[in-house]
């Protein structure tokens, strides 16, 4: 790693002091505010332990992942310090900041337990990562310039320019427009008083559409207005439209950091406004009808919530109350927002029925459950994607069908985090009983991963299987799965290795190796690995070994491995290699040997399966 651009310590301290002053004066918002709340403490503790599930839950609950605890630790620092790669990745993906040349960012980096995590952190350096809300803002801003397909429903004329706008955006973002439009929802156009410079209005509108505040006011010669006139105009417009932060944004546009903070605040605010409006008007106006009658629903083009399309989702047969008519739910929506999905974009751009404008709104059937459609819509309107594990697979399929890549990733994240239990403590997971495993149809998941081409889920499933391989390895379903994976590859004719199997081997290695590494006994592991070869009978009886493993793990949870003990035991074992099985009292030594043996047994079994399949094939 090139560390040449890292600030010297004194430089860092100076900038830190300056930053603190700024924060104290209230000029700058603290990136990492102190948070002593209970949920945050839980998040921190989960990050220490590497509990993916809890982390995901807390993040979904809305805990500020960039806050710090009483010791100035942020969750990201904790996770990277404790070496939980998956947690670090989850935090980064959820918007945790790791910016070089900041105090907290550098702490993350030098605290990172290993190079893998450090590299991950560097990858997510702030300059490259974006505000999670940025795509939404970009989409809204793009609506102003987008020509195809036409989605605007109001024309505002300012001077000789006319802006094609969207009533729902105006209503959601500006109380002024909300009232005005509530009074006359049908008005197709609106004329701006000539006293307001068109530039000022343009800037205000751009601001409403979450565009960036301009650096240049486009005034001066040729435009007919001086800078101060435009400025005054903006002031007036902002006051008029009740968007009080606009002027500040423009004034602050010189200071990059401040501008960035303001902007992310404004985008967050805009999102919240949109969300409020969305929940009240779109979700609030959804209607439930019997599927057979759905087509007879007529929504007028002119409606109070400015919807221009109805999306229909049929209730799943298994959800339906027995005996009653199947139900459908209709959501009144806005094409402008649906365009975020490539599916809808194509639908409205192409020359099929849906693209033509008629008096009554088209009803478009979307092939998923109402619950999932609601999640999809929420995401499209608000960028929020918080949903429970049980619909995650459905969301995955729906977002794959509708080409919403981000939601798809999100679904994959939900599945792989919430579904994971706690992988790094697989033993503990196992002891918690079998109920957890039943939560997840891992075979279904892996097939879904294949169908929707989500690499991350494939990896997740492989890891999941690797950590619970004992439970699956002998089932015919598992063999079938391996075969399927093999056939997938054959169709592609790339290579003769089986992807799933390779992945499982990798994670199996990780699972056992991790434990040895944790104990700092890598060398021992190598010795241990040779043992089974010397004594093949040791690995022959797999069932017996596993039972023992369980027994052992029951006992070991409470026992801490001390480094002093390890070399001693190693010596012991070297001298008394043949009598390991009989020495029940020497638990620590057994623990490692068991692991090594287990590893070898599982690997051998995988090979056996492979051999079988190859013979069959």
């Amino acid at each position, binding site marked *: 790693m090139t560390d040449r651009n890292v600030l010297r310590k004194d430089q860092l301290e100076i900038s830190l002091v300056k930053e603190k002053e700024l924060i104290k004066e209230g000029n700058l918002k603290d990136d990492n505010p102190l948070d002593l709340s209970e949920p945050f403490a839980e998040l921190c503790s989960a990050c220490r332990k590497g509990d993916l599930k809890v982390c995901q839950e807390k993040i979904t609950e809305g805990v500020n992942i960039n806050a710090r605890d009483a010791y100035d630790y942020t969750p990201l620092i904790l996770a990277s310090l404790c070496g939980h790669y998956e947690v670090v990745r989850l935090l980064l993906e959820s918007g945790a900041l790791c910016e070089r040349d900041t105090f907290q960012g550098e702490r993350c980096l030098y605290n990172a337990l290993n190079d893998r995590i450090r590299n991950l952190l560097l990858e997510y350096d702030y300059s490259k990562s974006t505000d999670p809300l940025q795509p939404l803002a970009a989409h809204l801003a793009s609506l102003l310039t987008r020509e195809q397909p036409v989605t605007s429903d109001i024309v505002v004329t300012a001077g000789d320019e006319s802006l094609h706008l969207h009533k729902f955006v105006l209503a959601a973002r500006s109380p002024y427009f909300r009232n005005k439009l509530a009074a006359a929802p049908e008005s197709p156009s609106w004329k701006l008083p000539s006293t307001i410079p068109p530039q000022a209005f343009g800037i205000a509108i751009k601001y409403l559409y979450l565009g960036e505040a301009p650096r240049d006011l486009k005034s001066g010669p040729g435009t007919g207005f001086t800078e101060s006139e435009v400025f005054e105009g903006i002031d007036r417009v902002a006051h008029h439209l009740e968007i009080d932060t606009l002027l500040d944004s423009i004034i602050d546009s010189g200071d990059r950091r401040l501008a960035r903070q303001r902007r992310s605040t404004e985008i967050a605010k805009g999102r919240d406004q949109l969300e409020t409006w969305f929940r009240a008007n779109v979700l609030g106006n959804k209607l439930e009808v019997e599927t057979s009658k759905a087509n007879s629903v007529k929504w007028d083009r002119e409606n109070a919530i400015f919807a221009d399309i109805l999306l229909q989702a049929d209730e*799943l047969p*298994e*959800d339906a109350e027995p005996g009653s008519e199947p139900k459908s739910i209709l959501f009144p929506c806005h094409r402008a927002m649906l365009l975020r999905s*490539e*599916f809808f974009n*194509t*639908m409205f*751009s*192409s*020359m*099929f*029925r*849906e*693209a*033509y404008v008629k008096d009554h709104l088209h009803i*478009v*059937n*979307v*092939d998923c459950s109402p*619950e999932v459609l609601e999640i999809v819509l929420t995401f499209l309107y608000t960028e929020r994607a918080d949903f*429970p*594990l*049980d619909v*995650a*697979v*459905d969301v995955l*399929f729906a977002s794959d*069908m509708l*080409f919403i890549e981000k939601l798809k990733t999100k679904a994959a994240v939900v*599945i792989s985090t919430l*579904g994971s239990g706690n992988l790094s403590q697989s033993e503990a997971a196992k002891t918690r009983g079998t109920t957890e495993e*039943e*939560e*997840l*149809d891992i*075979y*279904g*998941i892996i*097939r*879904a991963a294949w*169908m929707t*081409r989500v690499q991350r889920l494939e990896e997740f499933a492989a890891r999941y299987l690797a950590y619970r391989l004992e439970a699956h390895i002998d089932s015919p379903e598992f063999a079938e799965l391996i075969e399927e994976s093999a056939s997938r590859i054959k*169709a*592609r004719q790339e290579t003769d290795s089986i992807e799933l199997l390779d992945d499982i081997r990798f994670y199996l290695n990780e699972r056992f190796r991790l434990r040895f590494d944790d104990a700092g006994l890598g060398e021992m592991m190598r010795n241990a690995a040779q043992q089974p070869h010397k004594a093949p009978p040791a690995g022959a009886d797999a069932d017996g070994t596993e039972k023992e493993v369980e027994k052992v793990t029951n006992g070991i949870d409470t026992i801490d491995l001390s480094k002093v003990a390890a070399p001693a035991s190693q010596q012991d074992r070297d001298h008394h290699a043949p009598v390991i099985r009989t020495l029940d009292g020497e638990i620590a030594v057994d623990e490692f040997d068991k692991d090594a043996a287990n590893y070898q047994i599982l690997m051998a079994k995988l090979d056996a399966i492979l051999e079988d399949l190859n013979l069959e094939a």
Partner: protein
Amino acid sequence: MAMRARQKIRAPRKGLASSKGDDFEANWQALSGSLKRIHTKDASDLSFEQLYRNAYNIIVTMRGHDLYERVKQLEREWLETEVRSWVNAAISPSLLFAQDALDIQDQANERRAAGERFLTVLRETWEDHQLSMGMITDVLMYMDRVVVADHRKPSIYVASMALFRDIVLRSPVRPDTKTTVADVLESTVLFLVQLERSGQIIERPLIRHCIYMLEGLYETITEEESSKLYLTSFEPAFLEASKTFYQKEGQRLVESADAATFCKVAMERITEEKERCASTLSTLSESKIKEVLDNELIKRNIAEVVNLEGTGVRNMLDQDRLDILRSVYVLSSRVDSKKAPLTAVVQKCIVDMGQEINTLATAPAPAPEPTGKKAVKEKEKPMNQQTTSAIKWVDDILALKKKFDAIWVDSFMSDQVMQSAITTSFSDFINSNPRSSEHLSLFFDENLKKGIKGKTDSEVDSLLDNGITLLRYIKDKDLFEAYYKKHLSRRLLMKRSASMDAERQMISKMKMEVGNQFTQRLESMFKDMTISEDLTSNYKDHIRKSASQDSKPVDLEINVLTSTMWPMEIMSNTRDEVQLSCVFPREVESVKQSFEQFYLSKHSGRKLSWQASMGTADIRATFQRPNGKTQRHELNVSTYAMIILLLFNDVAPGESLTFAEIQSRTRIPDHDLIRNLQSLAVAPKTRVLKKEPMSREVKPTDRFFFNHEFQSQFTKVRIGVVSGSANKVENNDQRKETEKKMNEERGASIEAAVVRIMKQRKTLPHSKLMSEVLGQLSSRFVPDVNMIKRRIESLIDREYLERVGEDPPTYGYIA
């Protein structure tokens, strides 16, 4: 409630479980029906969502690949059964067989109509295909994303375009021929282009759209830019056809032997082809067709056109046809950055015109110098004529220069190459006139004396500038300097300059043009003049202070000249012949001595030598009329004339002096004496003396009387000296003289240069020394190589240099 129902995460609901076969067929049935409707433009009430769902369901059940193949098959069938037959039906026999029939008007018309019909159909089918495929691609979006990526297939759109290419364009038109639709398209478009070239109006947008099609189709499914059908098939044919067309056209135009027409047509063709690429064919071809035009039409013929007898560039230059010249230039510069044929003609033309001017100026060349006295009178005229012809020469050249400057700016677009060509030519012919330096100097002389009177500053300025431009061309600048110096000295001493400002301006212009060294001496001449003015007034003061003696002092206005700075030959008259200086009359002699005293008291150690030949004097003469009246005139005469006239003060009325007497008493050189006597006694208006016998020639035996009957209506009479006082063209002798002096001076310059160089380099091979000398001196003149050699020899003899090596010959400097 849903939560409860699904405790365990379900396997994907779709596909997998359901019975595959039926679903696939059912979905495909629905889908294929709709796809056909899309092709038949009956899609407006099809639901995108439904079609998408059909395709999606098929793909989710892992039958994506089958779907892809089915769609391809459907497209293939559609193209084969429907589209191909439409297109083929639109091809009329006239398109198939009349391949080269441009000759008969009827056939051409028929073919054209058929062709346009065919193109219209083709364009429609293509556009329909594109449109439907666009919609189908939209519907099959999911398939493209999933199946295509998995199987590494081209997207369905690309695949269907390839099908269109193979099935529609690449299939034989009739079962029995090999001609394909693409062939027909190609020949039809070429035919229409041909029509347009021959001046007919064709439907451009139609062709453009068909070309769009060729641009949108590729040879390969990877769709590289270079594999566009347009580039692989149509363009080569188009270029080939254009090549033959322009070869023929070029030949025809050259044969018709009118350069102007050729240029006009060529220019038109250029814009025409450019426009054709923009609006009818493809902009991709623009540079290529330009190349064809350049090579076939222009490059092949331009030399011939330029040299065409009677209408070529020569003629254009003569007739000032700037517009056509410009075309010629534009055409030439397209194919050849050096524009060789054009420059050659222009240069030749300039040299020819220049030679004409040269001969015109030298035509009334002085007939072999008449030696006898008889010739004196006759010599007067040709001399004047020569001066005027010299000035005319300069004027003519300036006119020529102006003309070519205009041509250069207007027609040759201020092209650098052309400029240097023109400059070289001018320099060539100007230097081919051995008298160019003298002529030019005379031109300045004339203008500074008379020409600039009544002109505004800017006019004077441009006049001088023009002269300076010519100076630029002259190689032997030192010769010019010599002449200029001579002429200038006359102007200064005789006070003939019209404006001192103009003189100074001229000097500073020359300084800028040729350099400081060149004008140094000229400037010091001016300095002498100013110093002399001061001196004169100082002397007057001095006289006034010491004025005790005569009440009638002689006014003296004196010019003290530094002998090295002024032209030698002014003084030469007295130096050449070993002769005593002339005898001044008493009054004058005393003034002279008094001044010498005055001057030497100020500057000791200097030597003053008096140049009587250059001075003038004002004297008052009293004429006793026979009727007793006396008439006074103030005479302005040369110093010599004054001396002569003063002699007559001592001569009794009626007495006479012979030429020999005058000569012995004044010791004025023969030559000057003759001239002065001529002006006093022969020139009709200023006959202050009477001569016996009365003739033009002055013989030693002639007798001279004071002419009391002298008549003049003016009180002040100016009596100029016959010739010599005005600047005129030199006669041959004088020229030889000048050249001789020039050579001496050059020799000195060369030696100086050689010594300068050697002093710096210590040792230097011969060839290097030569080139350095040439380099140093080229701004002043072009030295003769032999002369340099001789000078080096002489320097070796004088032990400035020594030979230090033989191979290569090398010289060393002796310190």
